[in-house]
């Protein structure tokens, strides 16, 4: 029967599969959509874990804004051709080392998690936006301010970097003095 647990595991599995598809994808747009799926699945997980506000933000900000930005960028570049040129060669050597390393990392993480005697079980009580807000504008006020500055910096630098320049040419003679 469908329980919260099964739902959680299902969406977790979905997130994992979608993430794998993101990493191994060849088509940029497809990979992006898989990422969206992964994010939505994670959002479901959040909701099931009793964090509906985070789930909402995950969808609105992550899936709805950040990834749209990605899609927008991809559409602007017309990256499809480029991706085919530089797609990873699916030789075993390309993937072997990283996967070995990652499996090792995963093993270490899992061992660490299982050894640390975490007995907690998620309590199905909803922590709603109000709690988060109270905390955010109480003890975390400074963090909020810093985050706002971070966003401002991101805004300014994003504008600066993406500003088109007349003299921008595709020459490879990148010089130290060049403005980026």
């Amino acid at each position, binding site marked *: *029967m*469908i*329980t*919260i647990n099964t739902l959680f595991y299902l969406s977790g599995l979905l997130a994992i599969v979608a993430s794998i598809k993101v990493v191994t994808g060849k*088509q940029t*747009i*497809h990979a992006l*959509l898989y990422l*969206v799926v992964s994010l939505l699945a994670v959002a479901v997980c959040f909701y099931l874990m009793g964090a*509906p*506000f985070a*789930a*909402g*933000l995950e*969808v*609105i900000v992550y*899936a*709805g*804004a950040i990834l*749209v*930005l990605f*899609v*927008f960028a*991809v*559409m*602007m570049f017309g990256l499809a051709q480029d991706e085919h040129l530089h797609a990873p060669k699916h030789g075993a050597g390309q993937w072997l080392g990283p996967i070995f390393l990652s499996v090792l990392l995963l093993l270490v993480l899992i061992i660490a998690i299982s050894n640390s005697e975490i007995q907690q079980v998620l309590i199905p009580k*909803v922590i*709603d*936006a*109000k709690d988060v807000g109270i905390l955010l504008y109480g003890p975390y006020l400074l963090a909020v301010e810093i985050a706002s500055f971070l966003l401002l910096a991101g805004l300014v630098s994003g504008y600066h970097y993406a500003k088109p320049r007349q003299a921008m040419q595709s020459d490879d003679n990148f010089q130290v003095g060049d403005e980026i």
Partner: protein
Amino acid sequence: MNTEISADMIWKLLEIGVIISLLIPIAAMLVWVERRLIGIWQDRHGPNRVGPGGVLQSLADLLKILGKEDWTPPFSDKKLFILAPVIGAVAVLMSFAVVPFSPDIGVSDLNIGLLFFLAMASLAVYSVVLAGWASNSKYALLGGMRAAAQTVSYEVFMGLSVMGVVLLTGSFNLREIVLAQTDGWLIQSQFIGFIIFLIAGIAESHRLPFDLPEAETELTAGFHTEYSGLKFALFFLGEYLGVTLISAMSVVLFFGGWLMPAPLDALLPPLVWFIIKVLFFVVFFILLRTSLPRPRFDQLLAFGWKVMLPLALLNLLATAALKLGGIL
């Protein structure tokens, strides 16, 4: 949530089925309503042949569309091409899940209902963007990019404009928001918020005058240039459902949902009042379409970021200040 199938769950599923099966015809009917109204305002007849007064025009259109070849362009990205209209329709339909139609009717009483609505609205962007991308044609791509830029921009103000409502009612739950307006509709205190929400809503649903992603005169049809048949119908459905949704949300957020002032509320059942209000807004949307010219794209974005955003922020600020001062 119980592990067994309860009568509650069955009732819920039934409710969902009924609402969806009602919504789609309503959206279809809106096409006829729109055409008729435009006709009337433009001093002509509009579709009036099929059925009494042309009521069955939409049905006829549907039949025509179903009879068409379901053509997918060979140069397109097939999966996405098919997926795009589906996303659009589904996202809008999902949004209706949180809309409280009346005290008893409503699919889900989600405690983050408003957020859910915003989330679905933001997901709806993918429909347009992907359609533009998957079509692999320049008009579609340009339309898609316009849609992405426009939607992402206006989503921000939409979110900000409804925050005033959240501030005053103290909840994301739409039912609670409606109930909080028992003493007076929020349009009194949130007039600016309502205006912003309305404008953003028009932009979100790509209605005139903000239909630049599908501007017929310059982009032939924007992101759905390459679409035809049932897939095109899905886009159309999505658009009219979107109009309905925005109207419904306006009613819920600013005009007290099913609530009516004291002498009037007893006259009709709440659901009817709700539908009347929504229809009022739908008609308003249609009127808007006929009466306003289309701006340039850069004007649209500049208007958004330079006028709407400061306005929304000011509104939020003022609301917060008044709330803090105990005035509201």
